[in-house]
C-alpha cells in the first residue's frame, strides 16, 4: 500500500504544480483547500467533552461534596427518575409543558403589543417620541426588580408570571420590528404608492413583509430573553414549571435535580433557537438574496 502511494507521487506532484499556476493566473478560480486546520465545531465538541470529564473526575475524586456537586451519572439517574416519577408532584414533562406554556403565552402577548409598537416607532415621529423612552426605560431593568410590583398589581396567579416574561420580551420584539421598518427601501414604498396603495396597504403589503426578517430575529432574541426570565417568573406561588422545580429542589438541597433542571433549561433553549432559525429560513427565504 505504502509502495503504491509512493509510485503515484510524481503524478500528485504535477497536480500540485498545476494547482499553483492556476492560482497565479486566475487567483479566484478555486479556493485553496484548507489543510491542517481544525473547525470551530471540533474545538467546541472537545471543550464540552473536557468540561464533562473535569466534572466527572472531580465528582469521582470527591474533590467537592456530592451535596454541592453531584456526579454526571447521578444527574442522569435523577433525570430518568424525574421523567418517570416526577418531582414535587409533577413529572418533568409536566414541568416543561407548564414553563413552555407560560413562555409562549408571553410571546403571543409580546408580539400582539410589540409589533404594532415597533411599527409606530418605525413609521411615525410621534410613535417614536412616545414609545422610544418607555422601551429604553423598561429594557435594562432586570425581571427580579419589577417582579414585586407586578405581584402587588396583579396578584400571584398565572397572569403575573406570564406578564413578567412578556415584559422581558417586549423590548426585543418592538425594537427589532422598528429597525426592520426603518430599513424598508423608500423605492419599494414609492413603487407601491404609485401602483395605487393606500397608507394602510403600504404598511400591510410592503412594510410588514419587508420587516419580517427583522421581526423574526426579534422573536428569536425575545424567546431567549423570556426563557431566561423563567426562574424569576416562577419564584412565587407556582406549583409547576422548570424554574419552580429548581427552586424547590434547592430548598431541600437536592442538588442533582438543580443541576438536571439547569441542563434541561439549556437544552430547551437550544432547541427553541434551532426551531426559530428553521422557521426564519422557511418564512423569509429571500433574506440576504435580494
Amino acid at each position, binding site marked *: 500500500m505504502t509502495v503504491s502511494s509512493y509510485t503515484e507521487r510524481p503524478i500528485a506532484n504535477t497536480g500540485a504544480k498545476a494547482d499553483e499556476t492556476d492560482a497565479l493566473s486566475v487567483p479566484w478560480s478555486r479556493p485553496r483547500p484548507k489543510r491542517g486546520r481544525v473547525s470551530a465545531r471540533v474545538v467546541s465538541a472537545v471543550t464540552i467533552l473536557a468540561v464533562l470529564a473535569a466534572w466527572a473526575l472531580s465528582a469521582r475524586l470527591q474533590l467537592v461534596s456530592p451535596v454541592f456537586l453531584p456526579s454526571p451519572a447521578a444527574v442522569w439517574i435523577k433525570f430518568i427518575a424525574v421523567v418517570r416519577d416526577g418531582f414535587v408532584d409533577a413529572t418533568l414533562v409536566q414541568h416543561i409543558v407548564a414553563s413552555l406554556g407560560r413562555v409562549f403565552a408571553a410571546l403571543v402577548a409580546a408580539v400582539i403589543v410589540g409589533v404594532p409598537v415597533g411599527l409606530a416607532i418605525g413609521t411615525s415621529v410621534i410613535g417614536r417620541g412616545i414609545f422610544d423612552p418607555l422601551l429604553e426605560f423598561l429594557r435594562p431593568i432586570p425581571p427580579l426588580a419589577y417582579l414585586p410590583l407586578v405581584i402587588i398589581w396583579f396578584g400571584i396567579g398565572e397572569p403575573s408570571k406570564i406578564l413578567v416574561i412578556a415584559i422581558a420580551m417586549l423590548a426585543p420584539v418592538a425594537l427589532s420590528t422598528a429597525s426592520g421598518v426603518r430599513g424598508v*427601501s423608500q423605492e419599494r414604498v414609492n413603487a407601491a404608492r404609485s401602483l395605487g396603495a393606500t397608507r394602510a396597504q403600504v404598511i400591510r403589503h410592503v412594510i410588514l413583509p419587508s420587516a419580517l426578517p427583522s421581526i423574526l430575529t426579534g422573536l428569536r432574541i425575545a424567546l431567549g430573553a423570556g426563557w431566561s426570565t423563567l426562574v424569576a417568573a416562577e419564584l412565587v406561588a407556582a406549583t409547576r414549571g422548570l424554574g419552580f422545580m429548581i427552586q424547590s429542589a434547592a430548598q431541600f438541597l437536592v442538588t442533582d435535580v438543580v443541576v438536571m433542571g439547569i441542563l434541561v433549561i439549556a437544552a430547551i433553549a437550544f432547541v427553541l433557537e434551532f426551531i426559530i432559525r428553521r422557521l426564519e429560513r422557511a418564512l423569509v427565504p429571500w433574506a440576504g438574496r435580494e
Partner: protein
Amino acid sequence: MTHLVLDKVSVHYDGQPAVERVSIDVAKHDFVVLVGRSGCGKTSLLNVAAGLVEPVRGSATIGGRPITAPGSDRAVVFQNDALFPWLTARENVAFALRLRGALPAERTRRADELLRLVKLDGAGDKHIWELSGGMRQRVGLARALAAEPQFLLLDEPLGALDALTRERMQTTLLDLWTASHVGVLMVTHGIEEALVLATRIVVLAPGPGRVVRTFETGFSRRYAAGEPIRAIKADPAFAASRGELTDAIFEGEAA
C-alpha cells in the same frame, strides 16, 4: 386627450434650487425622454410627475387635475426594480390588482397576460431572486402596466443593465408602449437610448435644472411602423441626430 403637464415647475431641496421653471407636456401616445448631465433635475421632475415631490412653484396636472400624491394613473418604474422579494414574479405583476380587490383567478389571468407581453411567459412562478436583471426589469414594467396607468414614469429603468440586455430592453419598451397606449415620461443617461425611444427629447442643463432644447424625433415611430431597429440605427439621419443631441447636452461647456 389626457395630458400630463408640468407647468413652470421649480423644485428646491433645503432651499437650494434643483429645478427652475421647467415646463413639460406629455400627451398620451407620446414618449418623452429627459436627458442631461448629472444634477440637471431629471429625476426631480419625474418625481414631481409621480407626486412624490412637491414643487415650490408651478403646477403639475394630469388631465387638468392637480397632482398631489402618487396614483395608479402614473405608475413608476425605478432603476432598481423595487420588486417585492416575498412574492413570485406573477404575484408582483398582480400587486396592483390585489390592491383593488380583484379575485385570484382574475389576477392570475391578467398577470400571465402581462408576463406574456413582456416575454416572460413561463416565469410566473419564479422568485425574484431567481431572475436576471433584465428579467426583473420586465417584471417591473409588467407590474406597472397592471395598474392600467395612463402614463408610465420610467426613472432610468435600463440604467443597471448590461449593454446587450439594455439594447434588447429598448425594443421591449417600444413594443409595450405601442401595445398598451400609454404616454411615457422617461429619464435616461443614454444618448442613443433617448433617440431610439423618444418621440420628443427634452435636454436639461444643470445648475439649477432648466430646459435648453427640445427635439422632436421620429425614430421610435419608424420602429412602431415596422422598420427594424438595426436599420434605423444605421440610418445617417440617426447619426446626425446623435451628434446634434450630444452637442445640445454639452452646450455651454468649454469644448
